[in-house]
């Protein structure tokens, strides 16, 4: 199963300590890696199909990027292939532009049903996987809501409705991070998220990961969907969870 990492902060932040810790703790995921971040509202992604950890060493480029990438929101994905090929096109995060934003999306889960989804919009180039189709589905659904919803549109509700619709039409295990540069959304219906804020080491940042023990010895908070609900959606801005709601 892939693993996810996200950092959200009040101002541009780099994660030279935490990205390598995440990579080492999630090194069983050998099918590629990617780091997504924002510069002047534009989403940028550096990714590779190579192993994150080889011959006892963390991938050289990953280490360098961890030192250099600086952004209010950073998303990292370590891939364990369950759908699609092992190549750079299939490494996450993916980028799509819609609703006036660049969006980053990274997914960890298994939803074979959605592989058959055909978007009427721009497809993610050369990616044939459940994750790419799930992102396109959410984009299409959110754009549709945007056209028809009463104004002002409420982004949290739009995304929550789109996720519900996706799970209805294409049931599966979804666990993803989605960001437009000033908001980070995290959704899960099958695995936990661990998160941490307020640590002195973090200096005003918020960290989130799918790794069950978190990334440090401090106490991380575990959140997961309630057994009688379909999923859990969090909205994070700066170093705060603004909303978390069961779907």
């Amino acid at each position: 199963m892939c693993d996810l990492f996200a950092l959200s902060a009040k101002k541009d932040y780099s994660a030279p300590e935490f990205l390598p810790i995440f990579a080492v703790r999630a090194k069983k995921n050998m099918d590629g890696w990617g780091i997504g971040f924002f510069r002047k509202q534009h989403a940028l992604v550096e990714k590779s199909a190579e192993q994150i950890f080889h011959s006892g060493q963390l991938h050289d480029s990953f280490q360098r990027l961890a030192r250099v990438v600086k952004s209010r929101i950073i998303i990292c994905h370590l891939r364990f292939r369950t759908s699609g090929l092992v190549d750079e096109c299939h490494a996450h995060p993916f980028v799509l532009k819609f609703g006036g934003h660049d969006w980053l999306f990274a997914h960890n889960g298994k939803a074979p049903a959605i592989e058959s989804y055909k978007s009427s919009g721009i497809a993610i180039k050369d990616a044939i996987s459940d994750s790419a189709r799930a992102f396109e589905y959410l984009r299409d659904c959110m754009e549709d809501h945007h056209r028809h919803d009463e104004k002002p549109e409420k982004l949290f509700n739009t995304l929550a409705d789109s996720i519900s619709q996706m799970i209805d039409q294409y049931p599966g295990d979804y666990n993803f991070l989605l960001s437009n540069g000033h908001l980070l959304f995290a959704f899960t219906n099958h695995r936990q998220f661990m998160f941490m804020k307020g640590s002195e080491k973090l200096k005003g940042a918020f960290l989130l990961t799918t790794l069950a023990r978190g990334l440090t010895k401090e106490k991380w908070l575990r959140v997961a969907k309630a057994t009688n609900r379909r999923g859990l959606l969090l909205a994070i801005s700066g170093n705060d969870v603004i909303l978390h709601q069961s779907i």
Partner: protein
Amino acid sequence: MCDILAISAGYNYTPKDYLPIFAEKSSENMNGWGIGFFREDKALVEKSAEQVFSDQQVHESFQRLARVIDSRIIISHINCPKSGGHHSAQLHPFNLTFLDHDWLFAQVGVVENINAYQTRETPRLEVDVYTARIFEYLRDQLVLLHHKNPYISVYIALRIAIQELLDDYPGKYTFFLANESFLFAFCNFRQLMILKVSESMGDILLVTSVKEGLSRTDWHPITPDPQSLGELLVIAGPDVLYAGDV
């Protein structure tokens, strides 16, 4: 009645057009003005007890500030004679630091008795205006709720804080509360007008108490449901993230 304006963007925005329009539209409120904004994560406030509009001109400093401020979130307040505050220190927005953020607060409304409120936290806002007491009350509640549950979501915490406020000090409230990342707007009596505008650098969101909005475009009214205690919105970048009854 005073007026308030908030601007939220996904990038550092310079309000050179909308702040002067706001000043003109609120020109009946002649008792001073304030502009709050953020540099990195620090809140800064510029205010003046002078008239924002005089001899058909927007106040010179107000105009200059509108041209040079650049911030993701900007809050402005134009003061009416009824609200007290004839010294610049008494004007909004107010600034307090708590829960790891600098926060800005600006309010229009009518609230009885809250002047007697004594904060349990520090710092205290050393001005004798009731809006300062409202801000302290909300700060105290948010800090208390956070101590009880450090991972409480901010929207839920503020909703509870407002419920407590309305219970202890019933009144007419319309306010903005913002940190460097997101902005809350609450109203229980005056409607707020909201508009998303495309600018060259990207979209921005405008929210104001000016009843007709700031332009001829179709502004969307946010009207509190009379059956509820009020409407609370949270805005991040140019988007309304969530809006709900309190």
